């Protein structure tokens, strides 16, 4: 005779955790529609409707911060997202397994470094006596303080994103490629298909569903660029190009305690992300049968 109560007992800690750390904060987002006061709390603070959203849209900072966020999000989708796919297709062509392992290790390692560490390396790299300026010097260039110039922020954001995460991104694609039936390649070779044609007509199409799922996840995080990365790479001189919703919310919401206003910004961000996932999921189910749900 089985008794079921232990199953319920086991589930309780996890359920309590999800309620405390996920659902209460989620419900707490209602303060975007209230004038939150620390003394009254989430429930008793007075309702003010869309006041904070109106302030937000007319706020002079908003256009700049939202523009930066869109710009970096777009760069990430267009320039960063495809890199691991290309890398995985390339790594898959290496036959010598020791070499393959070495290349993978070199490309994976940066992923395990925190953004604080990465920014430390990047600041050193671009400092006056850093490697970047040493090399510029060889070609007779004047030194450039790239971290202090807003013109360089976006390109640094893109390069650091690729450097840290593109190698790691190949792990999922490599797993997907390894699941492809080898017989497909054998019969293609019998038919005389070249390497490039095999990639184009077998590997890539079979990889596409995985690419699509990851693309959807990426789109869902379109406005969520990673606080750690931007915060650590940002300097006051680069705010004009690099200040994004996440860093802006941190300064206004937490440091200046404008709780309701900053929550409105955050809620705006989450809702846009959700709508994007929803729309693109629809689209992807039309195009192919892949999708998140």
């Amino acid at each position: 005779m089985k008794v079921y109560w232990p199953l319920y007992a086991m589930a309780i800690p996890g359920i309590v955790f999800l309620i405390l750390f996920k659902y209460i904060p989620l419900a707490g987002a209602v303060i975007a529609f209230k004038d939150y006061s620390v003394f009254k709390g989430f429930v008793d603070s007075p309702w003010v409707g869309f006041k904070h959203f109106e302030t937000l849209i007319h706020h002079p900072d908003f256009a700049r911060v939202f523009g930066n966020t869109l710009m970096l999000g777009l760069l990430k989708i267009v320039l960063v997202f495809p890199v691991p796919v290309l890398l995985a297709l390339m790594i898959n062509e290496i036959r010598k397994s020791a070499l393959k392992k070495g290349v993978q290790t070199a490309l994976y390692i940066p992923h395990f470094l925190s953004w604080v560490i990465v920014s430390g390396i990047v600041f050193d790299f671009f400092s006056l006596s850093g490697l970047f300026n040493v090399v510029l010097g060889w070609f007779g260039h004047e030194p450039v303080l790239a971290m202090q110039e807003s013109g360089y922020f976006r390109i640094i954001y893109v390069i650091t994103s690729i450097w840290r995460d593109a190698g790691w991104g190949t792990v999922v694609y490599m797993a997907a490629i390894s699941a492809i039936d080898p017989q497909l390649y054998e019969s293609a070779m019998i038919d005389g298909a070249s390497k490039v044609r095999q990639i184009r007509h077998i590997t890539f199409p079979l990889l596409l569903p995985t690419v699509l799922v990851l693309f959807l996840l990426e789109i869902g995080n379109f406005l969520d660029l990673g606080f750690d990365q931007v915060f650590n790479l940002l300097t006051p001189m680069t705010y004009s190009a690099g200040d994004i919703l996440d860093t802006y919310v941190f300064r206004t919401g937490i440091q200046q305690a404008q709780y309701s206003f900053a929550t409105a910004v955050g809620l705006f961000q989450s809702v846009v992300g959700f709508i994007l996932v929803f729309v693109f999921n629809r689209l992807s189910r039309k195009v192919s049968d892949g999708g998140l749900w």
Partner: protein
Amino acid sequence: MSETRSEKVFVSAVTVLLILLSALALIPLLSVVATSLSSKSVVDMNLVTIWPKQLTLDSWRYIIDRPDLWRSFALTLGSTLIGTVLALLMTALLAYPLSKPEFRWGGVVMIGVVVAMIFKAPIVPYFLTLRGLGLYNNPLVLIVPHVLNPFNLIIMRTFFKQFSKELEEAAFLEGCGYFRMLFQFVLPLSKAVLATLALFYGVVLWNQFQHPLLFLQNPDWFPLQIKIRQFITDDNVIMSGAVSSADLNYNERTLRAVTVIFAIIPIVAAYPFLQKYFVKGAMIGSVKG
């Protein structure tokens, strides 16, 4: 089937390109290592690229003598180890019932998990909630919010689902309960998924920056990442306690390089042991498709 000439050219070109890219990926790291091992004067004269010049361990000696850095290191290591074990336990305790059809709340709880994964609460109500729970200025904030991750939970549940019913039924007939089942049979057979998730949780705990930045004010409780951030941004913090003398063989830049390497060493040391789980983890992780 032998490869044609053009195929060989193609494969070699790809291989060479990848070797170049790998070198490119490692150069910034080598450059920091070289800086950390070079003397102040050559660093100031822009002579250091990826090989150390005028090799000296002075910067390393100075950093290794700093008690505040070791304190952060111990705190980070401790919270990472304890946090990872707790996280695996918490995750398994919920993943196991969710993998059983006889757990009647399963459907509802699963929807709850997925919603928690897709919707992220804005940071301000999240901050206010955790502060309300007493985690402000409390070092437990380095562990508690990380002990259950919905994505990892789903990975573990998927893994548990593949266990054979027969084994369980036989154990149940012998009078084994669900708790013993989980700890004596299911978990010991789940080493692959436990290792993968230990890696995922461990890296997050070791590298966490936003939580301590938001919640910890007392410098005694600063984990390694916050400490290093201070070293990177503030010359006074990194040079505090340094003896100023003309024959000093380090400066802010070489010291910064040392702290950066210092924080990477544990990860690089653990890497060879973890590497074999990456691909396995990715396979388990591709829940759909």
